């Protein structure tokens, strides 16, 4: 199978913007559950030149790909205020995923990634 690179692309390192076109950081990792279903993306948020950034897990469903007017762009349907206060992502610890419902979050053991918020 051959896919056109206009149609598909890698996602690690892609920058993410909010609906208000604010910089929301970059995707640095993807979280899947044991079935291989994508549950969340880890974004490296905030800081300056790599100092003071926070890694936050956001629900895969709040990421919108190629939104209207921005082909190839990624929009995070959360506000900076929601993202900045989220607990930091730490490997091997229970994962807190920022879901579509906003600041509400569900904590589950990381072995099972995340359970749906609603």
């Amino acid at each position: 199978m051959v896919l056109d690179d206009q149609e598909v692309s890698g996602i690690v390192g892609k920058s993410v913007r909010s609906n208000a076109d604010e910089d929301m950081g970059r995707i640095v990792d993807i979280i899947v559950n044991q079935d291989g279903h994508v549950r969340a993306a880890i974004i490296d948020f905030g800081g300056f030149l790599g100092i003071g950034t926070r890694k936050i897990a956001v629900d895969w469903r709040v990421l919108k790909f190629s939104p209207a007017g921005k082909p190839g762009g990624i929009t995070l349907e959360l506000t900076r205020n929601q993202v900045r206060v989220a607990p930091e992502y730490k490997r091997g610890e229970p994962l807190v995923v920022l879901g579509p419902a906003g600041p509400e979050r569900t904590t589950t053991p990381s072995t099972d990634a995340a359970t749906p918020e609603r």
Partner: protein
Amino acid sequence: MTPANPTDAGSKAAGTNPTIPRAARRGRHLLEPPIGASRRSQRALDWFTFFVADVQTGFGPFISVYLTTHQWTQVDIGLVLTAGGLAALAFQMPGGLILDAVRSERRVAAFAMIGISVSALVLALWPIFPAVLGAQILHAAASCVLNPAIAAISLGLVGHAAVGERFGRNARFASIGSGLAAAGMGATGYFPVEPGGLPGHRAIDRSHAHRPRAYPGQPDRSGPGSRRAGTRAHRHHVRCAAHAPDQPLAGDLCRCVGIFQLANAAMLPLMASIVTMRSSTWATTLVAACIVVPQLAVAAISPTVGRWAQRFGRRPILLLGFGAMPVRGLLFMVVTDPQLLVAVQLLDGICAAVFGVLVPLTIADITRDTGRFNLAQGIVGTGIGIGASLSTTLAGLISDRLGSSVAFLGLACIGAAGFLLFWLLMPETAERKDDRKLLPSGRK
């Protein structure tokens, strides 16, 4: 051997420098007249320091942002940063030994500069794992000789009597260099250029044309691996120090400054992460301010710090620097207003100025008759490196388990321990009468 080398470098550069027989190394300071380095040499050294700091800024924590834009995974980024950090620790003392052995520090500095340029080019052109790994190690090795070489050239250029002020100038220009580089990289970073790599590329290219204030890396850098190597390097250091019985003070200074770094290195990243969490619209600006404000403070005060060190002695100024550390930690613990946090960062500027000037100055003092200035720089540099790499791990652990306030309190306590240790271990190292007599009066 150092005292002879800087003289070589100095006499070529300054023109006015009397040549001192290499044989007269021991007790050379007795022969050393107040050297009047030419304006041109002084200026050249200013700019060299400036550009070195400028370039090194690009190799800081920013590297991980840059590699992320090239679709690097966190694991790989952690690996190359750890490798670079370990190499930087391992090369400190060999770097010092090499510098002590060579005839011309200037040539070594030039080679180191070429190494750093090559490393920057490789990062920009081939951001693939083996190339970046090699570039990080090359950069670490080059940096380990470059900064000591600048200090040695400074010492050779102006002599012991006036070197405090010269180190002050170095710190000023280094700080302006890294401040401008950070500002430039921040500005380029704001243009939303996709595909990803571009802003990073540009920043690296720009920085291709940095320093004690290199902001110690992120937690990745200091995994369990680096701790192991830390111990190894420490053992090595103890051995080396034992082989240089003429400078037991270098070991003491190494311990004090290492403990200072253990308290210091994690403070800015921890605080910046809290600012990111607390402040919404202004977070980026505030974090940038927290980085740039200390740089401005260093640029403003370090020549004065150098002059004071010559007038009042090293100990009181160093005690001031060590003392500022626990105060800073306690203030970070209680201050919540983001704007006030930036003001507290002025203390970081004071610490950075004091250590940027006084550490090489004290090393110059205690190796005055030994010709082992650069080895001692390597020993102290190893202590700084170990302290810095353990710092982020330690603060990260405390902050995860017990919260950031406790982490700041812990860092403040370590800072206080550093202050006490310095108070107990280190005597005044300046030869005060000499220094006062030889202090050039015609400085700006």
